[in-house]
């Protein structure tokens, strides 16, 4: 078991280094010298420029700069934002819980709706329900989610006035962030009005972000169930007279879940990065929106650090899923 975990962890290290290298190189590709970009049109004396370049280590060879960068990153130093002059790491950490909360809710939504829909579609294969679920899931999979979000806002927020248009919480409430998860924080202080407001703000973004994973989960569940339902042991179970519900729930579903769980796990990582569009539409104060704002403000250190941090969290989530999967499924653990 320990050996399995260690192998997985060791596989992550080159990926992490590679991504560090990628972000390092990508920022170098930005046209213009980082110092000249900062001084702007005022210009700068050549001596002062050389001095600053030396201070920032820009006069060293590229490989040396890269090693410096990796060293800084490993010490938790992701640089300072050009605009706010705050530590990029701190800005990221204050915003990350919002993104994580949204991503988890979206995944929960996708699983709670997608799993039963997929199972039912497989059991009633070829029925109207099956065709409906498959048609809808392909539509969801093809949906430009930025447009989907706008439609939902137009209908539910503007038209019916059921849900707020943007943000995480109405301005009248203030909750001291403890966990950073608004739903938990509001409950912890016992402010149920604020909790309802937070929940209301979450509904539409959750649906929008969860649409693509929902489609993926429904399709995956259906095809996994179909495969399992054709197996001999299902026929055996039916032949010995087990009730339908028991055959499907106990014998088929358990085996069909194996690929589905993997897909769900991998989607969490994708969602963390995919939140860019959803957060932009709903002005959700998470890392995705922050990243787009950094781009628009040409805040390259924030962009560089932000991408590296998001990528790292995605890698870590995937690693966690991998390890959990090995714990749950001995066949994976012992496979070479």
């Amino acid at each position, binding site marked *: 078991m320990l050996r399995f975990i260690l192998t997985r962890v060791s596989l992550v290290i*080159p*990926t992490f280094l*590679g*991504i560090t290298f*990628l*972000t390092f190189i*990508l*920022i170098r*590709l*930005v*046209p213009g010298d980082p110092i000249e970009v900062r001084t702007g049109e005022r210009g700068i004396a050549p001596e002062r420029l050389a001095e600053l370049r030396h201070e920032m280590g820009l006069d060293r060879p590229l490989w040396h700069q890269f090693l410096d960068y990796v060293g800084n990153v490993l010490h938790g130093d992701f640089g300072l934002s050009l605009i706010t002059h705050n530590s990029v790491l701190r800005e990221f950490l204050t915003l990350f819980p919002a993104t994580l909360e949204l991503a988890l809710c979206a995944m929960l939504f996708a699983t709670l709706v997608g799993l039963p829909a997929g199972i039912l579609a497989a059991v009633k*294969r*070829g029925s109207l329900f099956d*065709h409906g679920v*498959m048609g809808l899931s*392909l*539509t969801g*999979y*093809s*949906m*430009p989610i*930025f*447009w*989907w979000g*706008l*439609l939902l*806002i*137009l209908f539910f927020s*503007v038209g019916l006035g059921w849900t707020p248009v943007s943000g995480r919480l109405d301005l009248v409430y203030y909750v001291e962030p403890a966990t950073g998860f608004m739903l938990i924080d509001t409950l912890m202080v016992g402010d149920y009005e604020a909790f309802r407001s937070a929940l209301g703000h979450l509904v539409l973004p959750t649906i929008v972000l969860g649409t693509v994973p929902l489609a993926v989960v429904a399709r995956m569940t259906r*095809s996994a169930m*179909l495969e399992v339902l054709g197996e001999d042991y299902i026929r055996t179970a039916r032949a010995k007279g087990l009730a339908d519900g028991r055959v499907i729930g106990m014998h088929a579903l358990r085996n069909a879940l194996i690929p589905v769980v993997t897909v769900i796990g991998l989607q969490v*990582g*994708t969602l*963390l*990065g*995919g939140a*860019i*569009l959803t957060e*932009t539409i709903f002005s959700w104060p998470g890392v995705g929106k922050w*990243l*787009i704002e950094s*781009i*628009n403000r040409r805040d390259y250190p924030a*962009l560089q650090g932000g*991408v590296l941090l*998001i*990528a790292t969290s*995605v*890698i870590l989530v*995937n690693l966690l899923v991998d390890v959990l999967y090995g714990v749950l499924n001995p066949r994976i653990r012992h496979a070479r």
Partner: protein
Amino acid sequence: MSAEFSTNAEPATPEPIAVSRPPHPLTEFWYHFRQNKGALGGLVVIALIALIAIFAGVIAPHDPDIQYRDAILTPPVWQDGGSWSYILGTDDIGRDMLSRLMYGARLSMMIGMIVVTLSLAVGLGLGLLAGFFGGMTDVLIMRAMDILLALPSLLLAVVVAAILGPGLVNAMLAVSVVVIPHYARLTRAAVLAEVNKDYVVASRVAGAGPLRLMLIVVLPNCLAPLIVQATLGFSTAILDAAALGFLGLGAQPPTPEWGTMLASSLQFLQRAPWVVTWPGIAILVTVLAFNLLGDGLRDALDPKLKR
């Protein structure tokens, strides 16, 4: 929608015709393909959109860039105040929506083609190299691909587009980079499955060089999954390019790219919903058609891929 014809997949040969000759692969392919109504529908829609794209200059009722100052935010023809000269209405500076959508189809098809060609060419090359030479080449290439895959695709595209600077060409480059690993992995897997088969060994023994082995002997037998992936690649390309356009990192405003059109008329969402509705529907229908076609191709081309 894939498993429906797993039961009737066997009688591929029409019964009365000579037993000795199997049907031409294309005939067999078409036999399987046309049973999938969704895929056929997708093909028809794509053909229509392609026709619109090609003949946009002829069939569009107006110039997509001309601003009709007296017809700003005209609603579609079936709403009050609509007019037949602007069937789908006009946008916030009086440009005809239908014409802009038609020219947008041209852009989207072009984006799809360029992105798929670029990423397929690079991914195919890398995959072939990795699969054929193995060893260090394989490890280096596939590790690099894993790194690209570890980043969420839209995030990577956003970063690349931000660094290259906003614009349609850069957006296409960004989207291409993101999907290269998919092609590389598929090609490598297909090559590895083929490379030790007898026919490859035979031509190697007969003296075929590595280039001939790669491109003429092995490649044609690896094509099925690549064709499917390339079709699905169209939808990813169109969707991601539109998303970049929406974020302001893709095609820039006067260009009638669907995502850009959506973003530039956002503030009129409430007053004139049609300026936001049409580009979205255009994206959805196109992407859906390509996904349907890709699914159908997967089922028809490769029984092993059938899900």
